[in-house]
């Protein structure tokens, strides 16, 4: 047992999460241990803690809100059933995130319908974000383009990529995973990830040339 897990188990041992002292938020390790022992409320806390982050990742991969919702539920159910097999070599979030990404990739590989982006909201911070400002400085398109318009064009361009190319772009450029992590998740070599990313970038640059500038002659 890790020292962190020991300290986490002290205020939570033998009690439901809701009745635990609220001075410090219970750690993931402590909650996982309680959930493993059958405390459903402990798993609820983990679910609440990570549902949004997992949802975002799955949504970017599936490009559809309803599919993302289904897959998030499925992933958390899978994780709950496999809790006994979770050895704690990585954080709970990393573990459940991998389950969700694998579930989503498996789903997109076999889905019959062509996805249609059901847009999720861009938060208020996006307008004033450093990324948007930097983008505005770099771009060559007319200034009056709105954030929503931009979001729509970006999503349409992403949908034109093949599933494997989109997955690599999402995991690398949106989710911020390294080539190594992507290769492990997608069960392919790092070279394949690099190559897919290169060609996906080329394609996206062509599709979004009005924002990123024309190709080099």
């Amino acid at each position, binding site marked *: 047992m890790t020292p962190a897990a020991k300290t986490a188990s002290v205020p939570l041992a033998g009690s439901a999460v809701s009745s635990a002292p609220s001075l410090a938020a219970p750690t993931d390790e402590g909650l996982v241990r309680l959930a493993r022992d059958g405390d459903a409320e402990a798993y609820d806390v983990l679910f609440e803690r990570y549902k*949004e982050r997992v949802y975002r990742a799955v949504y970017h991969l599936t490009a559809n809100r309803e599919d993302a919702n289904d897959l998030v539920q499925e992933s958390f159910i899978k994780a709950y059933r496999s809790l006994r097999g979770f050895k704690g070599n990585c954080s709970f979030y990393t573990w459940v995130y991998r389950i969700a990404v694998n579930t989503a990739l498996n789903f997109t590989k076999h889905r019959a319908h062509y996805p249609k982006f059901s847009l999720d909201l861009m938060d208020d911070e996006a307008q004033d974000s450093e990324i948007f400002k930097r983008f505005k400085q770099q771009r060559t398109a007319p200034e009056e383009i709105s954030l929503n318009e931009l979001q729509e064009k970006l999503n349409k361009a992403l949908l034109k990529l093949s599933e494997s190319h989109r997955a690599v772009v999402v995991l690398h450029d949106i989710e911020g995973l390294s080539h190594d992590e992507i290769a492990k998740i997608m069960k392919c070599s790092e070279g394949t990830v690099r190559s897919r990313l290169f060609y996906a970038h080329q394609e996206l640059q062509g599709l979004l040339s009005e924002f990123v500038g024309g190709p080099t002659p």
Partner: protein
Amino acid sequence: MKCQNAQKQLSEWLDNALKPAEMKSVGQHLASCAACAEERRRLEALRSLLALKRHEGPDPIYLKGMRAEFHRRLNAQRSARRAARWVFFDTVGIQHWWERTRRVFRSHPLLALRYGLASAAVVALLVNALIFAVISGRTHTSPSGADDPLAISPTYMLERMPSATSGDSIPF
């Protein structure tokens, strides 16, 4: 360094994920090649654009019902498993298998056609084999050797009847 190689390594160069020697050579190439420097600017712009998607998120109202839905599904699966255990039959597993198979077949109709034809051929073969086995079985058990496989000759019956003089007991 060739432009093509430099451009293939650009993404990793921007991530600072190359080996020090490679970082240096790509950097030097970018400083001396206008076309690759422009390519770098375009890639940076694309990455900034893609990073905007990190701000996309579900409606908070929508997230509220998620936990209730999670519990509803978990309970449904639990009771299905319990019922399956009761009848010693993993219906949930079969349902999952069938769902997966349906998804694959929907997205690959040619594959579905091939599997369909193969299954039909196997079923036809089995039915033929069964019919053949039944018919040939009846023919072989027919003791009379007559054309009619169901006919039993009277001599055959007489041979097997217990003799009245032998003293053999009749079991009824």
